[in-house]
């Protein structure tokens, strides 16, 4: 349980600076919190509320809409196995059964070493490659029990570290846009004139 670190507060303030209203930064800051701790802690929610001027209840209300924000500790690798039509027809269920057996946990839980969390997922939009799974949202196609075991071995051995960062990582290189290079977004309620592209061609000139 932790609030945002000092470094992350600096990033958070920069993110907030990109928006005309601090509250608009709620979701990027939730990503930041999840990146920091692997899941969104209650302390982080409270901290985000303070940063954007919202109550903790409001931040929680926003965050809980999104499946990909987690509020309980999640393993370093979140394994989502698809169970929608194509995958189900081509062995998704057996794959899940095998995965549960291999990892020794039921779907929805985390291995005691904190390495893997196993979850069902709905359609991952790769039906031609069924059955599919994602590790921290990185695809694996036409997964068989053998390739699944190999994948787990690779992850355990750290052979995939360069491809698959720990759960919560949004990107390894954060895009930094200095505030002075922002596009100068104006809040909708502060807009007084129609944008130039809506004006008649002559008026726009």
């Amino acid at each position: 349980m932790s609030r945002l670190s000092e470094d992350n507060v600096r990033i958070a303030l920069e993110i907030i600076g990109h928006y005309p209203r601090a509250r608009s930064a709620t979701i990027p800051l939730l990503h930041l919190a999840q990146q920091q701790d692997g899941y969104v802690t209650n302390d982080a929610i409270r901290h985000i509320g303070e940063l954007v001027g919202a109550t903790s209840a409001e931040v929680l209300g926003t965050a809980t809409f999104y499946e990909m924000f987690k509020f309980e500790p999640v393993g370093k690798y979140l394994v989502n196995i698809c169970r929608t039509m194509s995958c189900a027809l081509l062995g998704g269920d057996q794959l899940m059964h095998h995965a549960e057996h291999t990892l020794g946990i039921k779907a929805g839980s985390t291995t005691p070493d904190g390495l893997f969390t196993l979850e069902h997922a709905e359609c991952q939009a790769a039906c031609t490659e069924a059955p599919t799974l994602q590790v921290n949202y990185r695809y694996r196609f036409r997964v068989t029990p053998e390739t699944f075991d190999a994948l787990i071995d690779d992850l355990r051995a750290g052979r995939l570290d360069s491809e698959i960062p720990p759960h919560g990582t949004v990107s390894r290189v954060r895009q930094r846009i200095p505030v002075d290079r922002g596009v100068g977004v104006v809040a909708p309620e502060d807009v007084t004139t129609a944008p130039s592209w809506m004006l008649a061609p002559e008026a726009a000139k």
Partner: protein
Amino acid sequence: MTTTESNDVSSDDSPAVIPDPNAVSVIINGKQFIARQGDLIIKAAEDAGVYIPRFCYHERMSPVGMCRMCLVEVDTGRGPALMPSCMFPVAPGMVVDTESPVSKAAQEGVIELLLANHPLDCPVCDKGGECPLQDQSFSHGPGESRYVEEKRHYEKPIPISELVFLDRERCILCDRCTRFADEVAGDALIHFTSRGNTTQVITFPDEPFSSYFSGNTVQICPVGALTAKPYRFKARPWDLEEAESTCTSCAVGCRIAVQSSRDELLRYQGVDSDPVNWGWLCDKGRFGFEGIKHDDRLTTPLVRTAQGHEATSWNAASAAAVQLITDAIAAGGASSVAVLGGARGNNEDAFAWARLAHDVIGTPNVSAQFADGLPVGVLGMPRATIDETAAAPTVILLAPDLKEELPVLYLRLRDAAVKHRSRVIEFAPKASGLTRYAWRTVFYEPGTQAEAVRAALATTDIAAQVAMGDVVIVVGRANLAESSAPTVAALHALVAALPNARVLPALRRGNVMGAISVGMRPGKGGLDSRGILNAAADGKIECLILVGADPLADVPDGDLARRAMAGARRIIAVDTFINASSALADVVFPAAAYAEKSGTTTNIEGRVTTLAQKVTVTGTSRPDWMVAGDLALRLGTDLGFRSVDDITASIAATVDGFEDVTPLALAHAPNGVLTSVVVMEPVVTPSIVLAERNSYDFRLVVSRKLYDQAIGTSTSPSLSPLAPGGAVFVHSLDVARVGSAIGASVKVSTPKATIVLPLAADDSVQRGTAWIPFNQSGANPGDLIDAAAIVTDVRIESI
């Protein structure tokens, strides 16, 4: 498409009738109606006598279209289509059909879906019998359900605050409570979470819905999802009897419905009074009824004997009181009798006591305030109503924290500020509930508010703002640790610069405006409350009469109050409880409490509204006016009052400003009758000379929280735990100066006294000042306050 022109009734031979530009002609269920521009269809239909079922729509909140219950067929010229009537304003020529087969099918479908997951536990649900879901299932539902699956289940109920319980399985997700919390109260502590199949309203873990206004969510919940602890499982709605009355917990004057069953008060509900409370109540007002039925209520008169207080008859007590008064007059003349109080009763009580004091006893020493109010002359300044204040372009606050002292006035001003009708310029010694919404907040060091006002008015932006139109000054005592002089000086500075500004007094006690207006104020040459207390302390008061007054708890200067109570030779008290002060009285009369007596009350704007008796008095207690009438008769004068209406009529006949407040007028005015402002004695501009402040000292601010140890709160089991308790608060950057850890006990001292309180940090407190909430548990900050001093400086030291 038809237009408004088709309604134009002017013809060639009649003079031109100018069509109302705001009129919109619509057809509802085949009949033509004229609606107002901007009205929502659901509202226009209701005004036309057509009820469209609804759950989420609430007239005092913005529409959200959550529940879909108000779907009706609307034809705007493109053919009929189903529309949620709470989301669309009327348009010219609109054809609305609320009874068409399509409308009916839509409404039945919505009810059926809502009931799919709603438990059928109406027989054990508090809402059963007054439940919009139950009622509208009967009136607009299909009558049967096709849903045979298992309903959802949640843990039930969970407390979301000290006062409110939530049954999530009953919730239909109408967004009323969450909208209220965010939009109206500004305490967005409940919110929808896990939106989707499992949407539910919930608080953040360990952050309860501790809003001062949480009870309103229970009242507006259209199902039994939210229930209030004080009423849960207490009664069925069909067993309740109800009378409309006015809340007197503070002086805003919110209209309420007092409900009882078998002669026991069980619930108050807010009544929508457009000029005052808009249907809202604060929790202190809503749940304060518990104190009225408390076991410790006085039931018989008491007289002091060698063994202490002894119960006696009214006859004996009255005779004893008259003996005390005549002895006092014989010993020191009529002016050695003083009367304090009246603000906790109604206009009639105050008037009878004022007549007794001024005309029968003949003393000018009468006061309804307890050295914590304003000079009565402020009441004679041009006054603004609450509506006028909330519509004025500029509202200047020179007042206590309205959220703590006049909560529903806070709601009205917050609404004005967030909807951009008013800009609030706040002058305060400490951040208040309205600081978040204020356009400008000027923090001043206690005592220097007049300079702060003058400096602020000299700045360009504030000068430009106050020149924009009406200005209303809300004035009251922001700090009990200073005299009223600096506030009055600041008020004078404002009025001198803004001669057209009007004033809204922010005085707190229920009927303080009424009591002062009908005569509970010093007569010619009479002493004000501080004068009376000083005289009593000096042994010059032969008989002190307390009418619903507890100087030991009410007067900020605790030492003065103690000396006054010790110095007064004879004390008569009229009260509902034995409190610190009435415990010292020689005779105590048990007074009828709120809802045990009828009458009228006057709110801060001078609006007189009715009070209803709903339950029988406790024991043999009587309304204050009867006590006054009896004592007057025994002293040889018949005041001539035989009923409350007699007195109301007498007030209308004799009190300036109350001419229109007749019993008949009140009977026909649910929103009450406004009194006119009567110019009283002019307010003298005080000259203020502040002593140089020692830089080691903190300047003291003492102010009230909504919940404290006042008798009404401490005798309500649901409210008393909400009092925060005493502590001395400093700014977090000042903690190091004190040299103690937060939470540690520290000595707070003046040359006069030292008290010990825990230290706390609060950044709403300004640097260099210290804040202590008044009348909380722990040491009494009143011991530090000297009523004769303009400000109070304290030293805070670790122990």
